C-alpha cells in the first residue's frame, strides 16, 4: 500500500500558494516523513524549478477543475483585499492522487506533530474533522458547526484522509455532482452563499452517504484541529512553536496574544502566513 500527502496550490496573483506548499511539504517531511504530491495550475518546472526537489511528484491541474471565484481576504481586523481564488473541487483528489492511502491537506495547514500517521493504522477508510478549536478566547463561532442555522453538520475539507476503495469513489463522484448542481443543493440545504465551498460540498456528500442523517460514513481525523481566522495575525513560526494575535470579538483592531506549541494549526490569514514563511 502506497502512502502520501497531496497538496493543492493555485496562485491568484497576490498569494503565493506554491511558496506555502513548499513550506508545508518541508513540515510534512519533518513530522510525517511521507512523500508529497503537488497539484497545481502553475508551470512550476519553469517558474519555481528551485523548489521542485521539495515535491516527490507535481501534477498539472486539469482545466476542468479550475473553478475561479472572488473572495474578500482579511489581513487582521483592519485590512482586506478582494482577490481571485481557485477552489476547484477536492473531489479530484481521488482521481489524481498517486497513492493508495492519501492525506489531502490545504497548504495553510501548519503541521507541528505526527498525529496524522495514525490515519494509516486506523480502520476508517475516510476520515475528516467535523469540529475544530479556535485559538482565541471566543470559541462560539457557529459558522464552523453547521453549514447554516437550519442545516446539517459542518465538515472541514481543509484536511482529510481516504483509501482508494469503491465506496470512496462513489463519495468523490458525488462531490463532483454536488459541485455541478451547486445552486440546487444550496436551496435544499439552505445556505446563503452562492460561492462554491469544498467544506459545504463535503458536508452535503457525507450527509447523503449517511442516508440523509448523522452517521458513521466519515470518522474523525486523529488529533485536534486548531484554527485561526483571517482576522487573526500570525507573527512567528519557530519549529513547533507559533505566536499569533487573535482578534478580540466586537473590539475592532484589538487583539489577544497567543502562544501555541506542538499543535497542528490552520492559518487562514494568508498574508501573515506568507510574511512568517519569508522570515524563516
Amino acid at each position, binding site marked *: 500500500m502506497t502512502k502520501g500527502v497531496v497538496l493543492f496550490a493555485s496562485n491568484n496573483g497576490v498569494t503565493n500558494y506554491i511558496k506555502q506548499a513548499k513550506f508545508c511539504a518541508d513540515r510534512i517531511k519533518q513530522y510525517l516523513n511521507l512523500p508529497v504530491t503537488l497539484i497545481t495550475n502553475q508551470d512550476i518546472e519553469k517558474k519555481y524549478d528551485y523548489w521542485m526537489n521539495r515535491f516527490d511528484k507535481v501534477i498539472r491541474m486539469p482545466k476542468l477543475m479550475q473553478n475561479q471565484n472572488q473572495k474578500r481576504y482579511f489581513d487582521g481586523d483592519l485590512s482586506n483585499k478582494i482577490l481571485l481564488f481557485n477552489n476547484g473541487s477536492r473531489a479530484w483528489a481521488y482521481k489524481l492522487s498517486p497513492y493508495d492511502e492519501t492525506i489531502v491537506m490545504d497548504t495553510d495547514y501548519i503541521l507541528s506533530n505526527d498525529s496524522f500517521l495514525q490515519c494509516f493504522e486506523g480502520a*476508517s477508510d475516510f476520515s475528516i474533522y467535523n469540529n475544530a478549536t479556535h485559538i482565541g478566547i471566543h470559541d462560539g463561532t457557529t459558522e464552523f458547526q453547521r453549514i447554516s442555522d437550519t442545516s446539517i453538520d459542518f465538515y472541514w475539507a481543509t484536511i482529510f484522509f481516504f483509501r482508494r476503495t469503491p465506496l470512496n469513489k462513489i463519495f468523490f463522484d458525488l462531490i463532483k455532482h454536488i459541485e455541478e448542481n451547486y445552486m440546487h443543493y444550496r436551496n435544499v440545504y439552505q445556505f446563503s452563499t452562492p460561492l462554491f465551498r469544498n467544506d459545504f460540498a463535503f458536508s452535503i456528500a457525507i450527509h447523503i452517504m449517511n442516508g440523509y442523517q448523522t452517521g458513521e460514513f466519515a470518522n474523525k481525523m486523529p488529533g485536534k484541529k486548531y484554527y485561526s481566522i483571517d482576522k487573526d495575525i500570525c507573527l512567528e513560526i519557530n519549529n513547533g512553536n507559533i505566536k499569533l494575535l487573535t482578534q478580540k470579538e466586537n473590539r475592532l483592531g484589538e487583539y489577544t*496574544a497567543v*502562544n501555541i506549541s506542538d499543535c497542528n494549526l490552520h492559518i487562514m490569514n494568508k498574508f501573515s502566513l506568507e510574511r512568517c514563511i519569508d522570515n524563516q
Partner: protein
Amino acid sequence: MDTRLEKALDISNYMVTLNNQKRLLKEKYKENLVHYYNGGQFTVKQELISFCQSLSALSQTETILIDDNDIPVEIENLTDFLTNIIDTYVQASNAFLVDYNKLKTNRSVESIMDI
C-alpha cells in the same frame, strides 16, 4: 488616561491572555491523552485505567473495549495495553504540569509569549 484605569486594563489584558493559554494547554492535554491501539482510539481517563486494572486483577489477559468512535476493539494483550495507557497518562499529565507551571510564573503578556 487615568493611571489607575491604565494599570487595571493592563491586568485585564494579561488575564485574558493567561486564561486563553490555560484553555489551550487543557485542549493539548486532552489531545495527548489519546492512545491508539489496533486501529482504535482511546482517550485515557482514570476510569479506563481502573477498569483495565480490575480486569487484570481478575486474571484476564485479553478483552474487548469500545473506543472513542464506538468501535469494539480487541485487546490481545491486556498487560501491555495497561502499561501503555498508564505511560500515555503519565507523559501527558507531566507535560501538562510542566507547561502549566511555566505559564503561572509568567506575570506579563510579553513573558507568556516568550515561553
